[in-house]
């Protein structure tokens, strides 16, 4: 193919792209002609090339190792073979990203344009943002300046614009925000908060063997293992941190490379550890071991990231499992806790992209670094499409789940630890978003203790696939160790699919980490935060999908994403036909284009043959001219739909009057046909002035034509003169000649058999009426510049009366070339005198139920222009519409319908008696509930109808949606909604009941009680505080009885008992754990026995009676314990000064409970000496005890001056008296003293007398 051919092919391609926007008919026709011409040329050249290739032993097609394809393209001017190098969009084709680009087979035009701040990349250095591939779309946000080839290459795979076609990126018009990997966590958090949806991280921890320069270094820890680096498969702090970032930003998906460590091993014999210590002895094993498993480092094992492995490119896209070839280096799972990693694979071998050496530099790299941007750049387009359709972005769990759900099979059937869930397929992910015929994407939240259920119906043909994905809370890393199996899954959701016909339960895929190469089986998945159920060949029928969880959901709830494909959806009726304008006797091919895979259909073709059909692609012939409606009714076991298209088929031609303006908005523009027998210059559209409406006309540029006698035909759509007489053809034209050239000719023909044969009507110019010019002759290219150049004579009228009332008419305008100048045609009009109409009509249904709507259609002959309908007894008694609808009858009976029509030719009417038969409906059925109308999630209730009279069947509805299979008088219900039942009689007529509202409350999260006690035991007199995990709606119970008024978050009690709390949501409640609170009694310590009047310095014993095993805490005031501390008996030596004294003791029993503190107050006295005893004998005091007066007699004293002191038990002087003793008793007034023990000191001369006495 020569260069000119290449140029035109490019133009064709460009034209094809343009064709998706706007195009002209002439351009399409021209391009088609050229394509045919070049195809013929190429075929002849290829035959010649094949002969040469065979002779020389060369190949006409070759695929290079980097995926480039070279193929023969033609011969140059010197006869040398030319070869094309096709676009190396291998990475894009591998995962079908090319199919979603403009011009792709999916029909979307996704490029990433406008996705500002949504896509990011973190890498080891800066991206060369000035590279020609980025066109200012890449920004190094953190200002890093150290350029990196790797970072630039990765960024290019994501967003390169395709300046070099081989290097075109996945989201080739997307903006990209770039960072180096310093402070990646903090920057990711900030970027996610600013709306970033996807980021790429083609880096990871150096693990196992790594070549550093010329040295081989092993980065494992020999203290943990000498054979394997513990970091492979390990969930470390970085994994936790990235899971946390993802959890905090639910729309943000982190795409992470799986690493290239598989099979790494030292080369040679010398090696060292990462701290520089030379290695010795047997070196550690190769990374991944001999089998290759468990070699994804650290945070490639995070739960919420999308970990991407690398496979070879597939240049024509995936067609079968064996197409996917694993790279030699990509890291394999499982994680140490057995989870499936990598998640998916993408193209990572021989990837051509831009690098940072210069603004025009490129190179080919391989690695999981390359696979990851292949994925991340493509997934941005999936988000873009979702937003286009749903006007919002997906959660990251939804995007990850969708990528997994639509991945192409690779490796073992189902998931495996090498390829993960399979090869990314961008096109399938995009298509699922748009699919309304059986796919579903749901974003929901599961509350702790609740279950979600969804009915699914399979047609028995399409595979059924259900995927659930959730962003889990971060796990808790364990201490560094080799292959710890501690599970990192926090909230374990479960999906099950139950086939309702036989209750068979289908479980999700599981893998066995102990046997990593084994094929997946199904079972209870306890490890992964993605689960999938897949039925390749499901039985047709109903299934029930449930989503539940194990244990209690941390946080009380878990958001999750659910993706379903392969189910039957309620159908949507859509009619399609290839050609809707035909001549009489011809056929129209219809196609049922309904969504939702209907299992039943019924077509209605009034006026056609056959008039009904049930096949998907019926062909219907029409023998009579007219405009005919088409109706289609479709159904499956989820519901039905119907569509009516009025005047869908035109038979026998467009009715009169007909006018063609040749403007772009003309509805008949595309029906004109250009024939160019000489394959040269022919009729084309031209912008003109001087005519209206608009400025477009058809032009036959005789001026440009080579040769004489060339014929070019412009043929009209099919026309019908039916119902008209005195038909006339008229049109505007502009023409002039080129001086020196004879006039070109315009001939007009008519066909009455749809174009099979034509009869000439008129001829103008050289072959007919000479000189039909409307403008002065010119040697220049003529284009009418004003109205005068169309001229008064620029309107020709041709009498077609001879063809009145005929159908299948075509008018042909034929140009005969004399190389003179240009002819323009515009405003071609055909009109006539309409005949009097002959009234007729038909109805969509003639036997209907009361209040059922009927559509009436006018089928009057001869084109009425006004209508007058009469519907006696209907809801609408009359109408002026041509085809009125929504006509119904409230009373059973037989009704007549009348139609009166008129046009310029006259009027007519028709009355069809006994035309509509209205059947009665059954009486309105009752509806009542047997069970409650308010239930909790998971419970059920029952509603029923008692109606039986004249009822043949029932059909239940929820929220006006038919409940499949609910045809019994009773209905068990579990879902909220407005329920109605329709009673149907033997005629098929039905009546709806009133509605019953069912409310379903969800269970609140199960509360948890904590207490201030460590073991639920307390001592008598103490206080227990119980706290509910729910802040509101609490009700406390003790021993299964409500504690009235106790509805707070905390409960304070001093009683033993069995306690729990209920948390309420409406009528539903969830019960907490129970706490059995037990009380230990306090010890019954006795009072203290012992001497309570003591002299200073004396020692006395004190005792209490307590429980065996108790300890006793004695507190002595103004004394010192001599022995017995801690026991029930104690010895106290009192101090030598008189102060407040007491003995206290508190018993603590063996169970730790303290008794009441016992107290004994002590009275202290000074001691009395021997001399004092002698002196006391010389004095007598009486009475003792004393009340009011105390008398003192000194028996041995001879002194007369006497001093008396009285002291209280504390030793304080309370009374002093001096008197002269005369031998008579001294009276001392004691009335002022309080009761108690006193000491009297009597000093008489040099003698001192002391004695104790009691004052009462």
């Amino acid at each position, binding site marked *: 193919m020569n260069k000119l051919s290449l140029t035109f092919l490019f133009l064709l391609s460009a034209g094809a792209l343009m064709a998706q926007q706007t195009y002209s008919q002439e351009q399409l026709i021209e391009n088609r002609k050229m394509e045919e011409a070049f195809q013929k040329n190429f075929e002849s050249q290829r035959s010649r090339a094949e002969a040469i290739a065979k002779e020389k032993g060369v190949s006409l097609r070759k695929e290079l190792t980097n995926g480039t394809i070279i193929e023969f393209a033609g011969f140059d001017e010197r006869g040398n073979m030319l070869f094309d190098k096709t676009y190396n969009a291998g990475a894009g084709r591998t995962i079908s990203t090319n199919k979603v680009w403009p011009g792709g087979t999916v029909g979307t035009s996704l490029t990433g344009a406008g996705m500002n701040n949504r896509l990011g990349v973190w*890498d080891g250095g800066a991206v060369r943002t000035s590279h020609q591939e980025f066109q200012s779309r890449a920004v190094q946000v953190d200002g890093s300046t150290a350029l990196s080839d790797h970072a630039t290459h990765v960024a290019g795979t994501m967003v390169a614009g395709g300046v070099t076609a081989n290097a075109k990126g996945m989201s080739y018009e997307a903006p990209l925000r770039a960072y180096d990997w310093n402070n990646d966590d903090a920057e990711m958090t900030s970027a996610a908060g600013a709306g970033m949806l996807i980021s790429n991280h083609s880096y990871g*921890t150096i693990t196992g063997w790594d070549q550093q320069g010329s040295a081989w270094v092993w980065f494992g820890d020999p203290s943990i293992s000498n054979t394997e680096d513990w970091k492979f498969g390990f969930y470390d702090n970085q994994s936790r941190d990235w899971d946390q970032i993802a959890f905090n930003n639910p729309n943000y998906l982190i795409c992470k490379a*799986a690493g290239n460590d598989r099979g790494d091993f030292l080369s040679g014999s010398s090696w060292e550890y990462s701290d520089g210590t030379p290695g010795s002895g047997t070196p550690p094993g190769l990374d991944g071991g001999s089998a290759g498993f468990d070699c994804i480092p650290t945070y490639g094992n995070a739960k919420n990231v999308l970990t991407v492995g690398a496979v070879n490119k597939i240049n024509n896209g995936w067609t079968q499992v064996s197409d996917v070839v694993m790279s030699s280096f990509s890291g394999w799972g499982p994680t140490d806790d057995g989870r499936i990693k990598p998640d998916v694979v993408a193209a990572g071998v021989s990837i051509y992209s831009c690098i940072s050496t210069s603004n025009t530099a490129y190179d080919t790299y391989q690695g999981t670094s390359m696979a990851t941007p292949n994925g991340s750049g493509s997934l941005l387009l999936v988000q873009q499409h979702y937003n286009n359709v749903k006007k919002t972005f997906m959660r990251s769990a939804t995007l990850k789940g969708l990528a997994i759900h639509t991945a192409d099979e690779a490796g073992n059937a189902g998931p495996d630890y090498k390829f993960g869930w399979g090869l990314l397929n961008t096109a399938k992910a995009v298509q699922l978003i748009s699919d309304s015929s059986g796919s579903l994407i749901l974003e929901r939240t599961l509350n702790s203790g609740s279950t979600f259920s969804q009915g699914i119906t399979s047609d028995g043909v399409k595979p059924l696939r259900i995927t659930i994905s959730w962003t889990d809370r971060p796990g808790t890393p364990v201490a560094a160790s080799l292959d710890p199996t501690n599970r990192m899954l926090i909230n374990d959701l479960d999906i099950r699919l139950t086939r309702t016909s036989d209750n068979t339960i289908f479980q999700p895929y599981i893998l066995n980490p102990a046997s990593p190469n084994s094929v997946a089986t199904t079972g209870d998945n306890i490890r992964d935060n993605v689960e999938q159920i897949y039925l390749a060949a499901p039985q047709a029928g109903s299934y029930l999908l449930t989503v539940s969880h194990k244990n209690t959901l941390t946080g009380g709830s878990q958001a999750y994403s659910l993706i379903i494909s392969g189910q039957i959806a309620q159908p949507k009726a859509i009619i399609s036909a290839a050609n809707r304008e035909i001549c009489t006797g011809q056929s129209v091919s219809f196609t049922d284009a309904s969504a939702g895979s209907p299992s039943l259909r019924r077509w209605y073709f009034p006026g056609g043959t056959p008039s009904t059909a049930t096949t998907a692609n019926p062909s219907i012939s029409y023998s009579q001219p007219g405009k005919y409606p088409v109706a289609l009714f479709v159904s499956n076991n989820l519901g039905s739909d119907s569509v009516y298209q009025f005047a869908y088929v035109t038979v026998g031609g467009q009715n009169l009057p007909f006018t063609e303006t040749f403007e772009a908005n003309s509805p008949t523009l595309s029906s004109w046909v250009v024939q160019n027998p000489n394959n040269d210059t022919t009729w084309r559209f031209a912008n003109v002035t001087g005519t209206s409406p608009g400025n477009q006309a058809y032009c036959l540029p005789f001026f440009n034509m080579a040769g004489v006698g060339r014929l070019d035909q412009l043929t009209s759509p099919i026309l019908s003169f039916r119902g008209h007489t005195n038909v006339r053809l008229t049109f505007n034209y502009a023409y002039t000649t080129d001086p020196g050239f004879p006039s070109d000719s315009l001939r007009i023909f008519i066909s009455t058999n749809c174009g099979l044969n034509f009869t000439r009507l008129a001829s103008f110019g050289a072959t007919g009426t000479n000189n039909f010019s409307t403008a002065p002759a010119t040697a220049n290219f003529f284009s009418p510049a004003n109205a005068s150049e169309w001229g008064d004579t620029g309107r020709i009228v041709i009498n077609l009366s001879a063809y009145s009332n005929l159908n299948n008419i075509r008018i042909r305008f034929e140009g005969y070339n004399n190389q003179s100048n240009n002819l323009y045609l515009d405003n071609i009009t055909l009109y006539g005198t309409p005949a009097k109409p002959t009234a007729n009509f038909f109805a969509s249904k003639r036997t209907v139920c009361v209040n059922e709507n009927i559509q009436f259609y006018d089928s009057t002959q001869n084109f009425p222009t006004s209508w007058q309908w009469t519907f006696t007894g209907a809801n609408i008694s009359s109408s002026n519409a041509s085809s009125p609808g929504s006509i119904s009858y409230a009373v059973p009976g037989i009704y007549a319908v009348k139609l009166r029509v008129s046009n310029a030719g006259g009027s007519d009417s028709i009355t069809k008696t006994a035309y509509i038969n209205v059947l009665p409906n059954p009486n309105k059925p009752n509806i009542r509930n047997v069970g409650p109308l308010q239930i909790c999630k998971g419970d059920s209730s029952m509603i029923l109808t008692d109606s039986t009279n004249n009822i043949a069947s029932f059909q239940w509805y929820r929220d006006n949606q038919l409940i499949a299979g609910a045809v019994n008088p009773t209905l068990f219900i579990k879902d909220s909604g407005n329920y109605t039942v329709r009673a149907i009689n033997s005629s098929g007529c039905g009546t709806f009941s009133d509605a019953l509202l069912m409310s379903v409350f969800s269970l609140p999260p199960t509360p948890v009680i904590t207490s201030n006690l460590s073991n639920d035991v307390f001592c008598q007199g103490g206080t227990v505080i119980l706290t509910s995990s729910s802040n509101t709606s609490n009700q406390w119970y003790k021993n299964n009885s409500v504690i009235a008024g106790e509805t707070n978050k905390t409960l304070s009690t001093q009683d033993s008992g069995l306690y729990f709390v209920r948390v309420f949501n409406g009528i539903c409640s969830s019960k907490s754990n129970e706490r059995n609170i037990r009380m230990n009694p306090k010890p019954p310590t006795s009072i203290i026995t012992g001497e309570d009047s003591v002299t200073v310095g004396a020692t006395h014993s004190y005792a209490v009676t307590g429980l065996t095993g108790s300890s006793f805490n004695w507190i002595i005031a103004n004394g010192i314990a001599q022995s017995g501390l801690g026991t029930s008996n104690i010895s106290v030596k009192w101090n030598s000064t008189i102060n407040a004294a007491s003995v206290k003791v508190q018993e603590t029993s063996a169970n730790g409970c303290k008794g009441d503190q016992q107290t004994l107050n002590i009275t202290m006295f000074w001691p009395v000496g021997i001399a004092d005893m002698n002196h006391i004998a010389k004095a007598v005091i009486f009475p003792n005890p004393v009340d009011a007066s105390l008398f003192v007699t000194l028996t041995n004293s001879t002194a007369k001056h006497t001093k008396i002191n009285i002291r209280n038990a504390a030793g304080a002087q309370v009374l002093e008296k001096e008197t002269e003793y005369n031998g008579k008793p001294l009276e001392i007034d004691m009335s002022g003293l309080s009761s108690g023990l006193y000491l009297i000191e009597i000093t008489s001369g040099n003698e001192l007398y002391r004695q104790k006495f009691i004052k009462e």
Partner: protein
Amino acid sequence: MRLILSVLFFLHTSIIWAQSQNTITFISAGKGKLAFTPINNPNNPSLEVVNGKLNLACQSKEGPMFQLNGIDIKKLKDRKAALNTAEVKWINIHKNEVSTGLLNKVKTSIVCKSCLQDDTIILSGEGNIFIKKTRYTFKFRFMGVIPPAQLIKTN
């Protein structure tokens, strides 16, 4: 009750003390103070040791982030001058603005007891930076725990 009050007071002052451990100010002679309030979060500022370099990022409530990058961890352990190659950045991710600054090495210090993993480190210092054409003098004091070192590479 008196004991409880004492404990509460101590806790309160401890909390205030912890908050005041991370401070940074930007002051311009002409425009006054640049609003930069570190987010009160145990992970802010964040510290990482990547390929032998200590990096710090402090996120503000107003949006911009302050970074100190590339402090040689070995020199830190040996108590030698570790700030020669430290990089100062002010990044406003939301508005696509980034500025780099210079540390006053004399007035910037790093204090840690043993400078090993899990040890507490105090970075304090000052420098100058141009942000949106205005020269600011910044002063900072950050405290945090040196995390485990990471060695990473591209894939």
